[in-house]
């Protein structure tokens, strides 16, 4: 399959706008689940407002949240997909830029030192484009995540030592969820990276936070940790928007990687309740848009 770069550009534009307006079905289901189990009346009314906002955004085709975030594109190239790598990146960037200027969207991206905003949602190394490969025959996947700053600012890394063990990991996650409180717009998906190197660990936390609700860590040890931590953080009473209640997190997701005998890294990356995500799958039969 030869990848049609015009279609990639158009899709990169479309996915950014769609992600900002329509939440994935798993997140909507997550809201219903929290609403059903929440016992605090104030928290219930906060959840109701959030659920209403999801409907209003769709009815008025407006943005769920004003923060258009940092645009992230995760692409996965399958077998026998023919494409020029640099042109592919250029097409994605162009699509991202066009979404911003043509919709128009607020550009939330600035130079890190001068703080100058090019008004395109793009800049040095942004949009973030992560490239991976898969076994899927003639398939190209593009996932788009507009990552809001309120929750992205809830990112942490600790190079624990082996003597701290799993206790160190658990304590770190609970303490960070407490520290960020309402700032990260709970209910959240708490992404946790365990193991690897410092950069891989951080990357895993981000990947975990962006995973669909209901998905489970491939590593059974990670999956066990997910259950324990999901339960634990929802006992802290932080609640939606940090105003109190049971619904602090939809879930805690964990991703793991092997690490060094003398290392025990743990990273946290939080996804806010505006857990936005859109996805396109390119195959020889066409482009399918989803979540």
């Amino acid at each position: 399959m030869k990848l049609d770069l015009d279609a990639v550009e158009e899709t990169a534009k479309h996915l950014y706008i769609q992600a900002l307006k329509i939440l994935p079905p798993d997140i909507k289901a997550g809201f219903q689940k929290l609403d059903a189990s929440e016992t605090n009346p104030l928290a219930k009314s906060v959840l109701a407002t959030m659920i209403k906002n999801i409907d209003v955004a769709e009815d008025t085709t407006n943005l769920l949240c004003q923060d258009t975030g940092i645009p992230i594109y995760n692409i996965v190239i399958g077998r026998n997909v023919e494409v020029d790598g640099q042109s592919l990146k250029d097409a994605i960037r162009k699509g991202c830029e066009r979404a911003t200027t043509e919709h128009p969207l607020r550009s939330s991206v600035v130079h890190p030192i001068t703080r100058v905003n090019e008004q395109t949602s793009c800049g040095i190394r942004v949009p973030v484009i992560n490239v991976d490969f898969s076994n899927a025959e003639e398939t190209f996947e593009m996932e788009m995540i507009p990552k809001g700053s309120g929750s992205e600012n809830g990112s942490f890394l600790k190079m624990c030592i082996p003597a701290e063990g799993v206790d160190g990991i658990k304590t770190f996650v609970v303490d960070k969820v407490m520290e960020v409180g309402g700032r990260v717009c709970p209910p959240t998906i708490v992404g946790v990276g365990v193991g690897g190197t410092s950069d891989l660990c951080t990357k895993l936390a981000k990947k975990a936070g962006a995973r669909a609700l209901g998905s489970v860590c491939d590593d059974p040890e990670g999956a066990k940790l997910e259950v324990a931590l999901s339960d634990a953080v929802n006992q802290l009473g932080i609640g939606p928007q940090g105003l109190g209640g049971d619904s602090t997190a939809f879930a805690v997701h964990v991703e793991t990687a092997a690490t060094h005998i003398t290392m025990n890294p743990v990273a946290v990356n939080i996804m806010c309740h505006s857990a936005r995500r859109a996805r396109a799958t390119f195959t020889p039969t066409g482009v399918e848009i989803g979540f």
Partner: protein
Amino acid sequence: MAEQTIHMPCTEEQVRDLKAGDTVILEDWLYGIRDATQIHMFDHGRTTRFDLNGHAVIHTAPNVKKVPPSNSCPAGYESICVGTTTSQRMERFTRPLMAQYGVRMIIGKGGLGEESRAAFREFGGVYLAIIGGTAALETTWIEQITDVDLDDLNPESLWEFKIRGFGPLLVAMDSHGGSLYDSVKQTAQDRRAEVLAGMGVGA
């Protein structure tokens, strides 16, 4: 918990009546500010021609579209999506906003700190929490952008909004030192040890 509608601008007495946990709905007028607006007003010595006395300000930077000025868009801006940003970054501006401009209400998400609590107590002010990340809904509470000042800072200009049924908003910090955030924080602190023990930490 009481719910009431307040027409802006409001008086010190109206604000002192509000207690943490109450809900309010604002009518008529609202002003939008953000980091750069206040850095320029309070660090770079710029002033605004707007009279903010007795008014509410919201921590925002809206998505707007430039249009030719008309009856429905008198400032030449259409509001596309108006949402709320995290307040904590703007903590140090609460006092000057109240002392120099007479602002009585600050709307934001995530809460403010000790300096703001003291200013609310001293001058008579409240912090109203909006549900962060519900901008689509918030946008429907804004009738129009009636005016704009310090517009070279766009999107962090000083915005004047005509509002209708803006809320419900939650009184999260009142003028008597009360704060919803404190009690939530305390609860989390109190439960921490039990939560960790529940996962077998330290066992």
